[in-house]
């Protein structure tokens, strides 16, 4: 297997706080890679560093060989890395469909002129985008809410909409920041099925999740962060037996 995402020696400090220290990891094409650790361990910081929100102090990030560090967020997305958010960050005043359409921005090109002149190419692209966006909403099971404002959707559906919006950009790697947070067991099961199905279709997933059962059952490999340091990496079996992981994070629960 080849590395789709290669993170090497990434460090990031905020003032005196070393949020990420020399983090290196590889996510292989086609796998589900988990990122776990206690609150404040630096998981979301790593996501922000990968997606161009933070400029990293040291290190290098490559997706399919292309340097991502130093890129702006929209360039990272265009390179094939899309994400969702721990605290849902939809465009609240736009409909579910429009949210997904914004996700297609990087894969479309029409300008205003084309829209004004109603050029065939523009109309085709718009129709194609709408069809794909509807298909994605159907995919995550919220097609019935297409015309509702995002802020009026139930919580679980908002989480699903975030996934659909991220998928709209046709990513090679989808980074999910606690997608199951606040979901009930039935919703978690549906999410799990969706993620496995996406993997089956060739998508690579990077997953931050606190639900240990979900992570252990879903991930092919995972890395554990603590205080901005990677303390373990490997298959769920290996990681769950690692003494330092048990001490820092899993506690007695996993034993």
């Amino acid at each position, binding site marked *: 297997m080849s590395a789709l995402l290669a993170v090497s020696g990434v460090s990031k400090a905020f003032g005196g706080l070393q949020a990420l220290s020399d983090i290196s990891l590889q996510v292989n094409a086609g796998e589900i890679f988990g990122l776990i650790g206690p609150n404040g361990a630096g998981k979301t910081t790593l996501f922000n560093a990968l*997606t*161009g*929100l933070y400029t990293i102090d040291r290190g290098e990030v490559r997706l399919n060989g292309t340097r991502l560090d130093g890129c*702006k*967020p*929209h360039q*990272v*997305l*265009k390179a094939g890395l*899309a*994400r969702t*958010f721990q605290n849902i*960050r939809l*465009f*609240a*005043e*736009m409909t579910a469909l*429009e949210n997904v*359409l*914004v*996700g297609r*921005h*990087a*894969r*479309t090109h*029409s*300008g*205003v002129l084309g*829209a*004004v002149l109603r050029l065939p190419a523009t109309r085709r*692209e*718009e129709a194609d*985008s709408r069809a794909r966006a509807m298909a994605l909403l159907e995919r995550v099971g919220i097609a019935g809410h297409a015309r509702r404002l995002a802020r009026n959707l139930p919580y679980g559906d908002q989480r699903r909409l975030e996934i659909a*919006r*991220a998928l709209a*950009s046709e990513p090679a790697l989808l980074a999910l920041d606690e997608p199951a947070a606040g979901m009930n067991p039935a919703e978690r099961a549906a999410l799990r099925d969706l993620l496995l199905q996406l993997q089956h279709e060739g998508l690579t997933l990077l997953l931050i999740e606190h639900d240990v059962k979900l992570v252990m059952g879903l991930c092919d490999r995972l890395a554990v962060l603590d205080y901005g340091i990677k303390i373990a990496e490997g298959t769920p079996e290996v990681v769950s037996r690692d003494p330092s992981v048990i001490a820092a994070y899993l506690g007695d629960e996993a034993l």
Partner: protein
Amino acid sequence: MDIFLQQLINGLVLGSVYALVALGYTMVYGIIELINFAHGEVTMMGALVALSVIGALALGMPGLPGVLILAAGLALAIPVCVALGLLIERVAYRPLRNAPRLAPLITAIGVSIVLQNLAMLIWGKQYISFPPVLPQGRYEILGAHITDVQIAILVLTVLIMLGLILMVQRTRLGRAMRATAQSRQVASLMGVDVNRVIASTFAIGSALAAVAGVMVSAYYGLAHYYMGFMLGLKAFSAAVLGGIGNLGGAMLGGLLLGLIESFGAGYIGDLTGGFLGSHYQDVFAFFVLIAVLVFRPSGLLGARGIERA
């Protein structure tokens, strides 16, 4: 002559111009929460550039139809204003995007002083009159008069507003603008080149300003290097009246302000027993601005609603 109907027509025409300029203020505010105080000066530049072209063509090619001459004026004024808007954004605002909010406000005022003085150097201090190239038709309806120019202003404004609403609601750029207005950060993470979208917003606002500048100079028959100041302030008041950041609000606020001014000017003499005359017209815009800020600071339709158009 029916005074009420006449003031209604005058007010709607004036209000259309205010609305077009107000749209520029409100679009920029909606997307980056900046009051672009140089916007009135962009309108002034549009008027003066168009007048220069129109004047030259009227002299040089007297046989040309007036509408064509006007179109030529617009055809130069729009790109000049768009370029000016883009330049202002790039030089005066973008470097201060993350600075305290007072900083870009000060550069905005600086830019507007620079533009006024630039215009004074190019066109001089005197009033420039609009060459008599336009159709001078004048029609009577129910005792009031309406001219070709007024009809053209009303029709063009309605078309532009409809186009703008469609653009914001239905197109890729419109969606990106609304997304950027709601969260610059998330929009960029979803693949929107935020700098480009912001620049596009300035470009569109400046194009509207060019059209409004030509309209107002055609309507009053005059243009002047200082005209952007008062026009800008009034359009800003209109945007605040409707709810700054809200596209529909700018349209409504512009029309209402035009009507308030027009009716105010028409009736103020009667109401004060002749003590105050119609030249107090300008008072109304600022009276409205103060009243809105005191009683309904978020405006009639509420603030920050480019996403609601």
